[in-house]
């Protein structure tokens, strides 16, 4: 938070009225995005994510609250000023919103009109952008001829055309295969590193969040219920929803379910305990499982494991069956706790019920 905030949303409300019905899509949301952040916004479908980010460039006027972008009070800008401000904010729409009557190249070229670039420069820039998203071959095609993912890539190229300072990406990679997704995320990360591009990334792919975000906000029912830097959110989620998201992302819930189903076969007893180990950072460097055996003759069998590196910090999540003498097991657990590892003892339910 030492970095200067480039986007400041203060107490934003957005309420929709439709035939007497009122939908409070966003309620009292405040959000501060620092220059150079890649800020992930996650939340269930319908949580208000799209509505919230549309407030940033005033595509959606909030019912209440203030919006400051780059030091400017966005809600007070006159139209010409707003236009100038918008040129610095690239936006990728959830539904692409490509112009059907223009070729792919023309769509990407659109924001460059009136940018002062020469025809040649524009042409080159468009070619570069299309190359970046792997659509050089489709330059002269029309949106209707593209696959879903191809359309999304055009939208990405268009949003980057103006060399924006801020990029708002609303599910920009949701229709993309993992490879293309990675490539796009890499690109964003590079632009972020090299040019200081600030990114607000709405996504439901926790993998994407893990891969490039440094901060995350979690939305539910129009409000931000949790926020913070990536590692702390992932290692220590406070709200059940956040935990849900992370668990679903690491698939630990499904894994546990499967493990429970096989529980009978695991022969659990006093000597065999099912334990979930969670650790952040350093713990990975000490060879934990070997250590437990060396010290306490506890044998750990990994049933499920997920060790990953977030923002250069490893994050471990293991489900193991620990086997050993009961007292040795106790000592092993204490060792784990002392090493800062979070222990959860899992009690398989009756598999028939689960």
């Amino acid at each position, binding site marked *: 938070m030492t970095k200067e905030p480039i986007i400041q949303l203060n107490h934003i409300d957005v309420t929709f009225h439709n035939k007497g019905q009122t939908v409070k899509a966003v309620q009292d949301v405040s959000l501060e995005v620092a220059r150079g952040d890649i800020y992930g916004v996650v939340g269930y479908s319908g949580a208000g994510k799209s509505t919230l980010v549309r407030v940033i460039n005033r595509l959606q006027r909030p019912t209440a609250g203030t919006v400051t972008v780059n030091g400017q009070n966005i809600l007070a800008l006159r139209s010409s000023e707003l236009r100038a401000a918008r040129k610095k904010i690239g936006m990728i729409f959830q539904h692409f919103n490509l112009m059907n009557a223009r070729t792919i190249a023309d769509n990407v070229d*659109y924001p460059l009109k009136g940018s002062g670039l020469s025809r040649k420069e524009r042409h080159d820039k468009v070619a570069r952008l299309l190359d970046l998203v792997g659509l050089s071959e489709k330059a002269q095609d029309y949106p209707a001829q593209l696959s879903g993912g191809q359309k999304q890539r055009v939208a990405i190229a268009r949003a980057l055309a103006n060399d924006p300072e801020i990029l708002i990406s609303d599910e920009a990679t949701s229709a993309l295969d993992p490879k293309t997704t990675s490539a796009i995320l890499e690109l964003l990360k590079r632009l972020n590193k090299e040019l200081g591009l600030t990114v607000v990334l709405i996504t439901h792919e926790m993998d994407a969040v893990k891969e490039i975000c440094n901060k995350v906000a979690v939305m539910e029912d129009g409000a931000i219920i949790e926020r913070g830097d990536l590692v702390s959110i992932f290692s220590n989620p406070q709200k059940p929803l956040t935990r849900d998201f992370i668990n679903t992302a690491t698939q630990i819930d499904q894994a546990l379910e499967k493990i429970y189903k096989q529980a009978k076969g695991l022969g659990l007893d006093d000597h065999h305990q099912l334990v979930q180990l969670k650790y952040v950072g350093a713990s990975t460097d000490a060879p934990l499982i070997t250590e437990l055996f060396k010290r306490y003759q506890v044998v750990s069998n990994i049933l499920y494991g997920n060790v990953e590196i977030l923002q250069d910090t490893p994050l471990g999540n293991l489900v193991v069956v620990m086997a050993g003498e009961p007292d040795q097991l106790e000592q092993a657990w204490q060792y784990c706790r002392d090493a800062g590892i979070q222990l959860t003892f899992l009690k398989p339910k009756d598999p028939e019920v689960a």
Partner: protein
Amino acid sequence: MSIFAKYFPNAVTMKSDFLQATWETIYMTLITAIVAGVIGMAIGIGLIVTQPGGILENRVVYNILDKVVNLFRSIPFVILLAVIAPVTRIIVGTAIGTTAAIVPLVIGSAPFYARQIQNALTEVDHGIIEAAEAVGSGPIAIIFRVYLREGLADIIRSSVLTLISLIDLTAMAGAIGGGGLGNLAINVGYSRFESDVTFLAMLIILVLVFAIQLLGDLWARRVDHTA
């Protein structure tokens, strides 16, 4: 020629009349189309951008445009001819003849075209307008580069419709000595029971109508990239 003379006993003697009438119809239609096209387009766009939720939302301007269009659409053409004669005189120096007919034709067809344009542009996806707004496009850019471009196929189809209605309307120009094929068909052919004249005049109108429709369809299909 003898067969023609047989089936078109009256028309055969009227070659120059037909040539002139055809020219008059084309002349009136063309000039009117250009002028009414520009005016109607401007009003139609005005209606779209100032409507509630439009990019230049303005209740007052919208209501004025909307009411003026309705007003002019309410006036029967023959009465329009008379009512605006003074205006016509100011603009073209005379209130009779082919050129003078253009003024009421414009006033008679521009509001109609405005509504057509309004209907056509209503169909442009709001998301696309937003995308243009998001990259900082101003109203002028949005009108010319988005509305007119995205709505082009529909605009062409509406223009064809208006143009054909306009040819129909030029038949009324006879009332003020404007001539044209419609006048030839009605006031020469039909009123005098010279059905061959009527038939031939209508045939020429038919050719014009088909040509306009054909070219319009081709063009619309060419610019329609939605499927």
